[in-house]
């Protein structure tokens, strides 16, 4: 069964910060929901092909030609932190 430590590990993989209270509640809810979805185990599916998509999967190729793309200004317009040229992120090196 899912433990609080498992859920904490998943929260790092998911890049979510959870408070101790959230972690507690999330663990209980995930245990309940995962318990529900585990009913799928009762079906025998060894010979069934997985279905990732509702449509027959096929490659769709686009012509290799230069087309206008989003101008830099527009691409940066919604960024919370930028210097008009690049997106800015907190320093990770040389702390």
């Amino acid at each position, binding site marked *: 069964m899912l433990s609080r430590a498992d859920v904490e590990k998943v929260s790092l993989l998911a890049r*979510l910060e959870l408070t101790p209270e959230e972690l507690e509640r999330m663990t209980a809810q*995930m245990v309940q*929901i995962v318990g529900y979805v585990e009913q799928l185990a009762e079906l025998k599916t060894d010979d069934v092909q997985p279905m990732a998509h509702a449509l027959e999967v096929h490659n769709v190729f686009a012509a290799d030609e230069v087309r206008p793309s989003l101008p830099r200004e527009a691409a940066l317009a919604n960024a919370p932190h930028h210097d008009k040229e690049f997106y800015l*992120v907190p320093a*990770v090196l040389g702390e």
Partner: protein
Amino acid sequence: MSVLRQSATELLAKLNAGEVTSVQLTQAHLDQIKQHDGQVKAFLRVDPAAALARAKEIDDRRKAKKPLGLLGGLPVAIKDLLCTEGETTTCGSKMLEHFKPPYDATVIKKLKAADAVLIGKTNLDEFAMGGSTENSAYQKTANPWDLARTPGGSSGGAAACVAAGMAPLSIGTDTGGSIRQPAALCGVTGLKPTYGRVSRFGLVAFASSLDQIGPLARTAEDAALLLEVLAGHDPLDSTSVDVPVPKYSETVKQPLKNLRIGLVREHFGEGLEPEVEKAVRDAVEVYKSLGATVKDISLPHGKYGVATYYIIAPSEASSNLARYDGVHYGHRTNEKQMVAELADERNKLVAAGKTAAAEALDNPLVRMYRRSRAEGFGPEVKRRIMLGTYALSAGYYDAYYLKALKVRRLIRQDYDVAFNEVDLIVGPVTTSPAFKLGEKVDDPLSMYLVDLYTVSANLAGIGGISIPCGMSRNLPLGLQLQAPPFEEERLLRAAHMFQQATDWHQQFPAMVPKA
């Protein structure tokens, strides 16, 4: 009769006959919004000046006898999950409170080209995750039939605004029932097209193999008109299918002869309220009186639909929502404060001699991601990201995600077998009429089970429509019709037949004036 009770098709005829102008129609709906949306809270944003200017421009073109698009001045409401260029698109999330998309979704482009008047953006569960519209970060939408109840979700605003006479047409999205369920609970007509029928370009992604855009309206005829505008191949969405778009608005009036209807044995089991069952069985009698034959069928894997869905949808969501990183767009935590706190945590641990714990602390970038996402997302979105991340993580992938994909095929195969014998599957949309606001918010699993009758169509990729078929305690009930892939025409024609023989779709809550 008040224009607020008339179908879009009737209103369009009046516009074309010069009996009413788009400005008058738009104003009437804006007035209804002004008067009642304080209580219903269907809209997140309305821009009356822009809507009226657009209506005026269309009126002028009509007066000058210039050609007009299919929607020629009809107001249309847009679920706030669709990108509108330069206009705030929040997805019901704090994460996107200030997000202004740099482009229009393909369906928005099509609506504009069809001369729709975009009247406002409607409320939804955050990123379309929910069945009651209570997961919006901004407001809880109420059901116009009973303000203490939910309109359903996630397209709750989209359904409520049509029921409340605030828009004759509206656009919703359906990943597990998010058009059909609110349509049923609000007493309007709502169609989820076949996967690939409508371009998803510019639709903010929740679960990409399940999401589909569709119309909500007062009648099947109106839904046909709107679908004709929305449908079609789009080079910008490689999953949109290149098959011709029928003239839905014309063929919808043709009744279906020798219709074979399937009633799913498993639909009438435990949990279905007797009044809903009665309304569905009465509806089947209506079809019989119109010449349909009825066959008892089985969808044996349907009972696994919700479990399958709640593995696949969160898995896809966890991947899709990884884009909200506080870097490219969307909410970002207060960085100075975050960096200072992190340094403080590190110093304390080092001072206490806990160097290993200090080493294990998030680096500033990871902490920025985690905190921005923690602040930007609400509880349901976090829950689904967590579930999906877990289902896709090493050691669990085969047991959950891969297993669910296999069951998904079994669910699809059930439909393929059933549609060898019947033309349409008819059944309930929900087990009960609208539930009370707050009733299920603390119990995620019970909220998920609301999707019991609707998720299978998304998993199989087929189309489904919900039409009003009765009332219980003065609350509307919905009838679901499901058809094989790309048979929207059949769904709409069958729905129209029913609406010609019944008047459930002409019932309105008290807030919609009669005259």
